[in-house]
């Protein structure tokens, strides 16, 4: 919804158009400031008449209690469900794809990595190595679950 906007207002190529534009602008500014039209030329006076017509409030309006009614309607509606369904589905799909990929890679190359890791680690007793791995897996799993829960909560309350 937000666009890159170029704030530069280019001049017309035709000098006659630019002169007319400047007269339109001068008349609008002078009318806005309610300056005395006595010194204005015929062209500017005509544009000042246009400015007066364009600055007149519209005949119809919104009901006086429009804001109150709308706020009551919004308050009575069920709790707002933030429209991030697509994002959540996409994140979940990517997460699953990543997990599956990690599992496949681990199955294919895990034994090689484990052997390589074990060679650089000080050699503990075999049961101690397994417990250490299980402990690391628990810590990692808890951290991932916590991060996932926090992410989901942030989305719902945001």
């Amino acid at each position, binding site marked *: *919804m*937000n*666009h890159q*906007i*170029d*704030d*530069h*207002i*280019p001049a*017309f190529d035709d000098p*006659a*158009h630019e002169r*007319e*534009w400047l007269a*339109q602008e001068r008349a*609008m500014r002078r009318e*806005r400031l309610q300056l005395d*039209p006595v010194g*204005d030329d*015929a*062209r500017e*006076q*005509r*544009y*000042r*008449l*246009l*400015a*007066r*017509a*364009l*600055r007149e*409030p*519209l005949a*119809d*309006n*919104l*009901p006086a209690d*429009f*804001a*109150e009614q*709308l*706020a009551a*309607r*919004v*308050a009575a509606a069920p709790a*707002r469900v*933030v*429209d991030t369904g697509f994002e959540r589905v996409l994140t979940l799909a990517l997460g699953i794809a990543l997990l599956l990929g990690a599992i496949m890679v681990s199955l294919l190359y895990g034994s090689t990595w484990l052997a390589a890791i074990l060679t650089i680690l000080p050699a503990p007793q075999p049961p101690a190595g397994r417990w250490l791995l299980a402990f690391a897996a628990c810590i990692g799993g808890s951290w991932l679950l916590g991060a996932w829960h926090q992410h989901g909560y942030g989305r719902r309350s*945001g």
Partner: protein
Amino acid sequence: MDDIRSSPDRELVDAVLAARPGAFERLVREYQGLCWHIVQRMVRNPEDARELCQDTFLRVHRCLHQYRYDSALKSWIGRIAYTTALRHLQRKRIPLVESAGSDDDYALLDNIGSGFDLEAACADQQTAQHLHAAIESLPPVQRALLTLYYLEETSIPEIARITGLASGTIKSHLFRARLRLRGTLEARLGVAA
């Protein structure tokens, strides 16, 4: 951008997102005039315009969490009002801009009558009616641009943020619309003289 982030806009948006009592009503009250001016000038039917204003603010409420403070809240809400009215007109197959520029309007550039009394012309009811009818006959986009420029006193870069049109395009629309209205006025003054 920093001034927008620390502006009253931020406080209001935070209050609405936190569902503080009265916050959304305050937001609607603050911007309902802008919304009405854009929508009513574009669709010209008060009943449709009221419904579209309602749709606009319901959409504002639904999407406010997506507002990123990269433009003023006024522009963000104005853009929603403008696109809501635009879609309504497109559904009804109403042309949004004139199909082709008329060269007749440009003939006025070097043509100006004399003996014009601004105050007398303002007091003349028929001239005023004639002028308002001419404003109503402009295409919807030009009516919206003139309303934003004159009634809301919005700058051209800000109008660009609301409408998504380039500043040069807006300038061109404003120029042609005002020239055409002057043409109507010249014709009226010719008749009256």
